[in-house]
C-alpha cells in the first residue's frame, strides 16, 4: 500500500488511488472509542445488578476499544482518494461503497482542520466544500499536514481561470498578496471573551446535577439536607440579620458573574486563539483555534454578500462582527466568520478586499413603511387584549389589567424596529439594516443575486407595502415592510443589473 509521501510529488495528477495517513487510524480509533464510551457506560449501568460492577465496566471498555480500532482500520483500508486532472475522487465505505468525484471548479473552499490529537501527530482533516448542502462534500481524515497544504495549492492552481476573473474584481487587494487583514491578539480576545458572557456552563452543571443526583451522596434539592449540613450555622446565619443575608446574595450573584465571564473567556480563547485572516493572491485564508486548529481558504469571488452583526451591549462600545456569505459551510453555520470582534474601521478594509463597500455618508437610506409597524403592533396586541377580556369575566376581574401592561412594550418594540430598519441601493450594492436592539447590516452585490420576489399578505396589500425577498446563494436577504413603489424600484434595478452582465461566468452554481 502506498503511503502518502509528505508533500513529495509535485505532479500528482497521474497518480492512482491513494490512502490517507496510517497514523490517522489512531485518531479515528480514539474518536470511535470516545463515541462508544457513553453506550458502554449505559450498558454497564443497566446490567449492574447482574454482574459485579468493576469487571463489567472493564469488559465493556475493552470491547469498545477493540471495536473502535477494528472499525478504524477497516475504514482506513477501504478509503482511497485520487487526485485527477479535472477532479478529486473519493472512494469510501465499508459495506456500501461510495465513489464521489468533485470537479476543481466546483470547489468553494478547502479547509484544514486539526483536532488536538491529530495536531500532535502532524495530521489534518482536509475538507473540500462544494456548497451542495448537507454532507455532500469530500472530507479526507487524516492526511499529513504538508499533503493537505499541497492538495490545497493544487486545487487553487486548477482554478486559475476563476481567479483571473476574480483579480479583475479586486485589483487593489491583488497587489498586496499575503497581507494580514485582521488578527486578534490576546488582549482583543480577552475583551471579546468578556462580551461573550455566558451562563451556559452553569446551566449545564445544574442540569447535570439534576440528571445524576442519585449518584450524589446528598440530596441537593432538599432544603433539610442543606440545613443539616450547615448545622448550627444555619441558625447563626439567620440570626445575623438582613445585612448578612444581603451580603450572601451578593456573593452568590458575584460567583455567578465570575462563572459567566470565565465561560465566555474560555470559549473565546479556545475557538479564536491565534485568529488571523490573510488576503493571499488567490483568496482569503483564516486560521484559528487553540486546541482544534482550523485553516480555511476561500476564493474571494465566491463571497456572495457580507453580513455585519453586533449585539446590544457590544454595540454601545463600538464592536461588530463580520461574516462572509457564500455557498460553503463554516462549522455548521452558513457563513464564514472573518472578523468576530472588530471596529467598523477594521471591518471596512476586509469588506473592500472582498469587493464590498460599507455604506458611506453619501448613501441614500430609505425607511420602511410606517403602516407595517402599526399593523404589527395592532396584531401583536390582539393576544393580550383577548386574554384581558377573558379575565374580565373571570372571578378576578381586576387581573384583566395585567395583560394590558404588555401593550406599551409591544408598541415600543415596533417603534424601535421601525427606527432601526432602513434599506438602500446604489449602483453596485444593495443594503439592508434591521433589528430591534442591535441592528444587523447585510450588503449584497446586485449582480450576484439570484431572484427577486415581492410578497404581500392581506394586511400588506391594504397598507401598500411588501416584503422584498432576494435570492442569495448561501444566505437570505429580505427587506420587511418596504413601500410597494420602493420594492418595485429595487426589483427593476436589481433585475437590470443581473441581466446586464454575462451571468454564466459569475454563476457560482
Amino acid at each position, binding site marked *: 500500500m502506498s503511503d502518502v509521501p509528505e508533500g513529495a510529488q509535485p505532479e500528482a495528477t497521474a497518480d492512482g488511488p491513494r490512502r490517507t495517513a496510517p497514523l490517522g487510524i489512531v485518531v479515528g480509533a480514539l474518536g470511535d472509542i470516545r463515541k462508544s464510551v457513553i453506550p458502554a457506560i449505559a450498558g454497564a449501568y443497566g446490567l449492574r445488578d447482574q454482574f459485579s460492577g468493576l469487571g463489567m465496566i472493564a469488559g465493556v471498555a475493552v470491547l469498545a476499544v477493540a471495536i473502535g480500532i477494528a472499525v478504524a482500520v477497516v475504514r482506513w483500508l477501504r478509503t482511497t482518494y485520487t487526485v485527477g486532472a479535472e477532479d478529486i475522487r473519493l472512494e469510501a465505505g465499508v459495506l456500501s461503497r461510495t465513489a464521489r468525484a468533485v470537479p476543481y471548479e466546483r470547489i468553494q473552499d478547502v479547509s484544514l482542520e486539526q483536532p488536538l490529537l491529530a495536531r500532535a501527530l502532524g495530521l489534518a482533516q482536509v475538507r473540500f466544500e462544494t456548497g451542495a448542502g448537507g454532507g455532500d462534500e469530500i472530507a479526507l481524515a487524516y492526511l499529513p499536514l504538508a499533503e493537505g497544504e499541497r492538495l490545497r495549492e493544487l486545487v487553487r492552481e486548477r482554478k486559475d481561470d476563476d481567479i483571473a476573473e476574480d483579480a479583475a474584481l479586486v485589483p487593489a487587494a491583488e497587489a498586496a498578496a499575503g497581507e494580514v487583514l485582521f488578527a486578534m491578539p490576546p488582549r482583543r480576545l480577552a475583551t471579546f471573551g468578556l462580551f461573550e458572557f455566558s451562563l451556559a456552563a452553569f446551566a449545564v452543571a445544574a442540569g447535570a446535577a439534576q440528571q445524576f443526583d442519585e449518584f450524589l451522596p446528598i440530596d441537593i434539592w432538599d432544603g433539610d439536607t442543606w440545613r443539616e449540613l450547615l448545622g448550627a450555622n444555619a441558625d447563626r446565619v439567620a440570626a445575623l440579620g438582613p445585612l448578612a443575608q444581603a451580603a450572601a446574595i451578593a456573593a452568590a450573584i458575584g460567583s455567578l458573574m465570575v462563572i459567566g465571564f470565565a465561560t465566555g473567556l474560555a470559549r473565546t480563547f479556545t475557538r479564536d486563539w491565534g485568529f488571523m485572516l490573510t488576503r493571499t493572491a488567490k483568496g482569503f485564508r483564516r486560521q484559528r483555534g487553540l486546541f482544534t486548529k482550523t485553516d480555511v481558504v476561500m476564493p474571494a469571488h465566491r463571497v456572495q454578500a457580507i453580513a455585519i452583526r453586533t449585539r446590544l451591549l457590544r454595540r454601545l462600545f463600538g464592536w461588530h462582527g463580520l461574516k462572509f456569505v457564500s455557498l460553503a459551510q463554516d462549522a455548521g453555520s452558513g457563513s464564514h466568520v472573518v472578523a468576530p470582534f472588530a471596529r467598523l474601521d477594521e471591518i471596512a478594509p476586509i469588506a473592500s478586499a472582498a469587493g464590498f463597500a460599507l455604506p458611506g455618508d453619501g448613501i441614500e437610506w430609505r425607511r420602511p413603511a410606517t403602516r407595517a409597524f402599526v399593523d404589527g403592533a395592532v396584531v401583536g396586541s390582539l393576544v393580550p387584549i383577548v386574554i384581558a377580556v377573558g379575565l374580565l369575566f373571570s372571578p378576578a376581574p381586576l387581573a384583566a389589567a395585567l395583560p394590558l401592561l404588555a401593550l406599551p412594550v409591544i408598541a415600543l418594540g415596533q417603534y424601535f424596529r421601525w427606527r432601526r430598519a432602513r434599506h438602500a441601493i446604489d449602483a453596485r450594492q444593495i443594503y439592508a439594516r434591521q433589528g430591534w436592539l442591535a441592528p444587523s447590516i447585510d450588503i449584497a452585490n446586485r449582480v450576484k443575486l439570484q*431572484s*427577486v420576489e415581492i410578497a404581500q399578505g392581506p394586511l400588506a396589500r391594504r397598507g401598500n407595502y411588501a416584503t422584498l425577498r432576494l435570492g442569495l446563494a448561501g444566505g437570505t436577504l429580505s427587506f420587511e415592510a418596504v413601500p410597494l413603489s420602493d420594492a418595485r424600484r429595487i426589483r*427593476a434595478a436589481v433585475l*437590470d443589473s*443581473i441581466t446586464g452582465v454575462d451571468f454564466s461566468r459569475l454563476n457560482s452554481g
Partner: protein
Amino acid sequence: MGDTGQGIITEERALTPLDPAHIKMLRLQAAIAAVPFAIGSLVLESANLLPMGAFFVPFVLAAAWLIARVPLRRHAARGYDLGADRLRVVRGLLFRSDTVVPFGRVQHIDVTQGPLERMFGLATLVVHTAGTHNASVALPGLAQADAASMRESIRAHIKRETL
C-alpha cells in the same frame, strides 16, 4: 446597468393567464378535498344531534362556494410573463407573491406532471436557482405543450458555463 426603465416596462406587461383547464383541475382538487367533510357531515346528520340539515346544508353551501367560485378567483390571481431574459411568476389569492427569475440564474428546469395534471393535459414548470430564498419557483397550470416549449426557450437562454 443603472436604473433604466426596462424592469418597469416588465412590471406593466400584461400577465399571461394559465391554461383554462387549470380551473377544472382546481375544481376537481377542491371536490376531492371536500369528500371527507361530506362523509363527516353525513355521519353527524345521522347522529340526530341537531335538527335535520344543520350540518349538511352549511357543508353544501361551503362546498359549492369552494368548488364553483374559489377556483375561478385562484386562477385569476395566477399568471406568468415569459420575457426576453426573465420569467415572472405571480400567485396567491390572500398572500400574493410576485417572483422574477432571470434566465441567467437558472440552475436547472423541471417539468412535472401529477396524476390530476395528466388527466387535464397540464404540467408544472419548476425553475431552480442557487438562492436560499426561492430555491425553486413552481409555475403550475400550464398546458403540457406550453410547459415544454417554455422549458426549451429558457434552456436556450442559459449559456453553458465555462469549463
